[in-house]
């Protein structure tokens, strides 16, 4: 248990080298589910610190890097139970290449046990919808950092309605220029102000 606590601390501090070494050791005798649940708990604590402005994006970035590395070690040991796994498509909308926030959403949701499919940046409306249908996604997550491109989020929702597919997916949005008001305006299911809120939304999704 002490070692597991240290692992969480290494991840939170973004000390990937120590985190990797310890994870390799722990996976030999600890349950992978338990390791991941401690890690996600640790990331939530980091999220609270972010909320209180005690840590900023650089700290989140190196912590999520370390988390990814540890996940790579732990994941292969997880028992496969795909049937109740939720799937989310994420991407930054067309015309926008900002990716830090979107990537953080991906890492944190993966840690919550979500099957995350990341379409990258500058993603066309069509691609979001086609991919979501192809993999029977539960959620489509749309990111944008610019006022110029926020219309892309609106267009995805509009296109889903036009094609009679709106009820098939939850649509969540995020990014600096957008807000709850924008989510209401375009008819998105949720506005998530940061990656932690997105992870929470996915976790609580029935």
């Amino acid at each position, binding site marked *: 248990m002490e070692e597991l606590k240290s692992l969480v601390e290494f991840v939170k501090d973004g000390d990937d080298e120590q985190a990797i070494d310890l994870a390799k050791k722990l996976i030999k005798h600890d349950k992978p589910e338990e390791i991941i649940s401690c890690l996600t708990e640790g990331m939530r604590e980091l999220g609270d610190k972010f909320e209180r402005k005690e840590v900023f994006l*650089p700290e989140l970035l190196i912590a999520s890097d370390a988390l990814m590395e540890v996940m790579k070690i732990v994941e292969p040991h997880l028992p496969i139970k795909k049937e109740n796994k939720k799937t989310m498509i994420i991407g930054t909308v067309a015309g926008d290449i900002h990716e830090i926030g979107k990537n953080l959403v991906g890492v944190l949701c993966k840690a919550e046990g979500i099957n995350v499919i990341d379409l990258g940046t500058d993603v066309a409306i069509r691609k979001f919808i086609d991919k979501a249908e192809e993999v029977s996604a539960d959620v489509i997550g749309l990111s944008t950092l610019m*006022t*110029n491109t926020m219309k892309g989020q609106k267009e995805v929702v509009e296109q889903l309605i036009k094609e009679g597919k709106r009820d098939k997916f939850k649509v969540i949005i995020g990014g600096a220029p957008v807000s709850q008001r924008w989510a209401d305006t375009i008819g998105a299911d949720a506005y998530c102000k940061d990656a932690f809120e997105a992870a929470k939304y996915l976790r609580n999704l029935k």
Partner: protein
Amino acid sequence: MLPGKKSYNGITSYERIMTALEGGKPNRVPVMAIVRGWAARQVGFSISEIMENVEKHVFSQYYCARNFGYDAVLDLSGVHAEAEAMGCKIKYSENEIPAVVENVVRDYKTDLSKLKLIDPNKDGRLPLIIEGIRRLKSLCKNDIAVIAYLEAPFRLAAMLRGNNIYRDILKKKNEIKELLEITFLNQLIYGAALVNAGADIIEVSDPTSSGDIISRDQWLEFGYIYTKRLINELKKTEIKLYLHICGDTSDRLDTFVELGIDGMSLDQKVDLGYAREVIGEKICIIGNVSPTHLAYNSPDEIREESKNCIEKAGKSGNYILCSGCLVGIETPSKNIKAMVDTARNYYY
């Protein structure tokens, strides 16, 4: 007569802006907008057209200042031009904002020594931008203020290095500081060229230091120091300088006062009343009507928001009404008009 052409009580747009930047009270509230693609759209040009063609760019800026009656033109065609001149690859597209798609400092060990300081008269699109400033100045004379755009050393470092810069803040402090020494020198050279080209004012822009992204301490260590050095040097030419930083910078407003800048352009996330309280009357405050609201709210709401900004930060001058950040291309012109008219009707 076009609206901006007239001087009010002998005061031109240029004088109004300069008066505010000097801490004074012009005859009415000065106003400007952070526009590039939007200005191009007003005259039927695409973003790629104004990026390639200096005449189209200059015309779009000049036309909008005259037609909407705001007080300054801001030359944003230079965004990422320094990074490009230093070897980064930029993606230009018809109607999207140019973006750096290939960074030049991938590995500090091998790539830092290869970096060359720019020659503003030769490298990349820099000669085009210098020419744009020259032409804007010759059109605007001393009627409308001409603002050139210069990236802060930390901003340029981020463009050269990419998103990894945020990891470097914690893991490669020495390397990043070596890079910052280079970008500082580089921006000094380019800044001097912009002054020589005839700019009245330089906007030093640092979205990388966004208050939503890095902490106050990180700003002080990686942003502040190098920006302050740059400003100290450029100030020797007596150019006016203001800084723009994105995001919520409420926890570091006091540091802006010590930078040596004439003004601070604040993002819409900062409450201007609070900013005025912290900053006092030491520097001019510029801002901060939300670009999202400009794009999607009604003109009445924009008038209300603009009036609030003025009441909070500009009651005794030392203030320029402006958008909090870049205005979206498809922003309705009636909303820009609503913002501008609010200032034009606000006499001191």
